[in-house]
């Protein structure tokens, strides 16, 4: 194990997979010479050269379309969209093409491609650069959606994504890039797709979270432990496929659930998870499920009011207390 940042863990995953497989190449806006807007592709151009580390025009839809074609032609592209917000320009290639090609062509093609997208709010970047669009991708069958919370998961999941023969949307949280953690050094270390992880075991209430929300949930659980409340924090890691079995197993154990989502509440992934809990665990629930969500507003710039729009530890704490007291 060695301590490294989420950014460096991702960087290492890219380098290891590029060393391992010559069909892996990286493309995106400013990924080569500039080494990435968030520096996740630092050092790649120097090590792998211009043939495999490709700067592209600002043409998001075509970045994904070219990746689709390259994957169909036998390569293993890792595309970076500078932020998840720009993925909206590429939704035609993502939803209408990438996610459909295998099925609509009767299984005669497969697309071993990964699209990395930094995202999430909290940096005072305003309405167009602060979105959490994970639910948009989860809604569409034909691709996987991963969103790691820790450096170890970031490395292990990115390696799995690159090696997987299905298209993978790989979300990265901009506020986690500098977070540090222990990461296994074994170049064969990877995290399976579709497996949630109990980041903190507990007895009284299950907190279902993902990405930065997992980190906030862990902080909150630590505080709540001092008050004698034992929280189990389940980190989804993989949003699609969703590890329903792990969610239900944890809720059956604790009998209570709080679901946290950074995205907008309306039709947010928390609604889907809550519904699955009710459908499967209604008989054993000790309290109604509580959701903590991003507010249904375009993100404001000012840090004072931006904070209100994103789930905070105190919101999670309040939700857990509500569930524990049975009050709604």
């Amino acid at each position, binding site marked *: 194990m060695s301590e490294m940042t989420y950014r460096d863990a991702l960087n290492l995953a890219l380098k290891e997979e590029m060393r391992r497989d010559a069909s892996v190449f990286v493309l995106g806006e400013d990924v080569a010479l500039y080494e990435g807007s968030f520096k996740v592709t630092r050092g790649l151009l120097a090590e792998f050269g211009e043939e495999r580390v490709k700067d592209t025009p600002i*043409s998001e839809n075509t970045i994904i*379309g070219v990746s689709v*074609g390259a994957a169909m*032609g036998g390569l293993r592209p890792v595309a970076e969209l500078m932020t998840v917000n720009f993925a909206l320009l590429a939704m035609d290639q993502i939803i209408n*093409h990438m996610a459909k090609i295998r099925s609509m*062509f009767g299984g005669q*093609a497969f697309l071993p491609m990964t699209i990395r997208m930094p995202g999430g709010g909290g940096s005072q970047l305003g309405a167009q650069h602060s979105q959490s669009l994970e639910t948009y991708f989860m809604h569409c069958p034909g691709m996987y959606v991963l969103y790691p919370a820790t450096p170890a998961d970031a490395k292990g999941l990115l390696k799995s994504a690159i090696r997987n023969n299905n298209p993978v949307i790989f979300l990265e949280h901009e506020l986690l890039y500098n977070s540090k953690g222990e990461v296994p050094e074994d170049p064969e270390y990877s995290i399976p797709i579709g497996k949630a992880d109990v980041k903190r075991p507990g007895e009284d209430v299950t907190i279902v979270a993902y990405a930065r929300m997992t980190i906030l949930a862990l902080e909150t659980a630590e505080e709540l432990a001092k008050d004698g409340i034992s929280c189990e924090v389940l980190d989804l890691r993989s949003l699609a496929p969703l590890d329903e079995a792990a969610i239900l197993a944890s809720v059956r154990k604790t009998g209570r659930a709080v679901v946290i989502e950074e995205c907008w509440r309306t039709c947010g992934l928390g609604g889907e998870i809550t519904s699955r809990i009710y459908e499967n665990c209604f008989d054993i629930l000790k309290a109604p499920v509580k959701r903590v969500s991003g507010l249904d507003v375009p993100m404001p710039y000012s840090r004072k009011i931006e904070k209100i729009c994103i789930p905070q530890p105190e919101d999670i704490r309040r939700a857990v207390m509500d569930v524990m007291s049975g009050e709604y």
Partner: protein
Amino acid sequence: MEARLRTVLPDQELLRLYEQMFVSREFEERCAEQYTKGHITGFLHLYSGQEAVAVGATAGLHRDDYILSAYREHAQAIVRGAEPRRVMAELFGKATGICKGKGGSMHLFDPSINFMGGYAIVGGQFPISVGLAFAASYRGEDRIAACFFGDGAVNQGTFHESLNWAQLWQLPVLFICENNFYGIGTEVHRSSALASIHKRTCGYDIPSEKVDGMDVIAVYRAVKYAAEKVRESGRPYFIEATTYRFRGHSMADPAKYRSAAENEMWKARDPLPNYAKRLIEEDIATRETLDAIEARCRKTVDEAVKFAEESPWPEDSAVWEDIYV
């Protein structure tokens, strides 16, 4: 001055072009009949009138070259080598279809012949073609990507993004615009600021030319020349083939936006009888030879319809198959 046919291709090849055009026409007309009978459902966009483009262009490419197209692509798939009966079964939605009945008329695909798909979002195939050309170049393969599209697609962002990209990265893509002058019911001069489509490539410094898309030999020669240019230079090239669809945009379109005079003018340029006439005039075929070819094509399509009719429907369990690897 038209070239004498024998200076262009051997007799057998010249006759093969006729057979491919005829089987395409016959296939489409039988599709219309089967649609009317309710055997083919959904959207059905027929290629009748445009055969010289698919046939001439395919003859000008290598078998290893990738072909991509839009949603009016039955002929491109069949001419490239897709089995007509499996294409017909696909249109019927049968399990024996070329995409197991999951694709339908607009989504034919057969990687065994490098036919890399029919795409039904206008302009969707541009970047995918560029990506396939990149993969070929990256892997050091001697093949190019031929990307077919209509006049309507040139106003999509992906058109400009992909032309820029193909030239910037120096990729072997042959763009082939089938200009049939209408995007559904909107005539090209009502949608394009520059209606002369091949001139649009000057912004990307991509060489281009315009060719008579009703003349299979003209298309063949232009594409053969262009494909070799692309292969040698590793750079893109652009062809605009002017043509005409004899039917509406789809079976749902009676095409009332086109005048009878315009229709007659183009019908007089029908690529099939005109090419048949040349074959006879230049002593490459007799009427009897062509009759025999036509009979063979009808038999192929008859068998395709019979195969499609008799084929089984997909199992219900198929809905969960072939989504993930």
